[in-house]
């Protein structure tokens, strides 16, 4: 898991610098936002000319799941005060996933899984973000190094494991088509947010 997180961290650091964010801004995003997909989305939207507002909106929509993870984790962790702030900050895909995978081993194992993973990923993510950012800064033209293709490839790597059934794959293709169809007509960033309505329409109707 650490290797994967390290690779995502390098990819994010490089993508962020290639999108025009400074090394300080890139590092602050990893320290303070600490949610991979949201960070990628912000630099992706703003790097391709979208406004800060559409970048924030896309990133925040992707961050909703962390809130739901928190709902799942809070009865287990039973934290208060400053410790709850820390728990909230490290509530991400990985820490929640590891905690849930320890379900058979009892609550104590779930709690230590959550904290160890959350804090471990936080350290790796931030170190490798800086490495990626420094690397990209010394490279020059992102296209010459393939960095401009590495970013969509990273998004594809993030979405691929989520496409577990045929209807999910169909939704993915539909979202791509909708975003591309809107691109010539609305400001950058809006085509991406617009696809959330596709998810809303299907998610609230199905079942």
């Amino acid at each position: 898991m650490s290797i994967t997180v390290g690779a995502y961290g390098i990819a994010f650091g490089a993508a962020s610098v290639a999108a025009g964010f400074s090394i300080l801004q890139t590092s602050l995003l990893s320290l303070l936002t600490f949610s991979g997909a949201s960070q990628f989305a912000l630099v992706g939207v703003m790097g391709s000319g979208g406004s800060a507002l559409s970048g924030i909106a896309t990133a925040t929509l992707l961050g909703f799941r962390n809130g739901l993870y928190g709902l799942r984790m809070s009865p287990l962790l039973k934290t208060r005060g400053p410790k709850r702030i820390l728990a909230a900050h490290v509530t991400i895909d990985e820490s929640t996933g590891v905690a849930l995978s320890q379900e058979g081993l009892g609550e104590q194992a779930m709690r230590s899984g959550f904290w160890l993973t959350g804090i471990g990923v936080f350290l790796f993510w931030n170190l490798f973000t800086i490495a990626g950012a420094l690397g990209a800064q010394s490279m020059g033209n992102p296209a010459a190094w393939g960095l401009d293709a590495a970013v969509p490839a990273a998004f594809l790597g993030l979405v691929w494991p989520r496409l577990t059934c045929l209807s999910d794959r169909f939704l993915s293709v539909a979202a791509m088509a909708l975003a591309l169809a809107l691109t010539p007509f609305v400001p950058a960033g809006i085509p991406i947010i617009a696809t959330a309505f596709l998810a809303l329409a299907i998610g609230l109707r199905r079942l």
Partner: protein
Amino acid sequence: MWWGVIGTSVAAFGLKYLGHSIPHRYLEHPKIQKTNLLIPITLLSALVAVQTFAEKSKLVLDHRAAGLAIAAIALKFRAPFPVVVILAAISSAAVFHFSS
């Protein structure tokens, strides 16, 4: 840029903290759970498409498409994430140099 950094960070933490603080019978409705699984699929897919085929507000087919195609093939063969990204970068850079 700074607005993006600050706004995203504040909203991301706010959502995480909210999740830990509100009583959990809210938002546990299965439709909300389902939608929550679908939103990342549409947003990430849209980002893949736009980052590959758009240049500002124009649709283009360039070296990035080659990189993405290789990435998709690598994922199909269950390659790990670092391999996928590196293969995409190499193939895109190769096409970029070849065509310019």
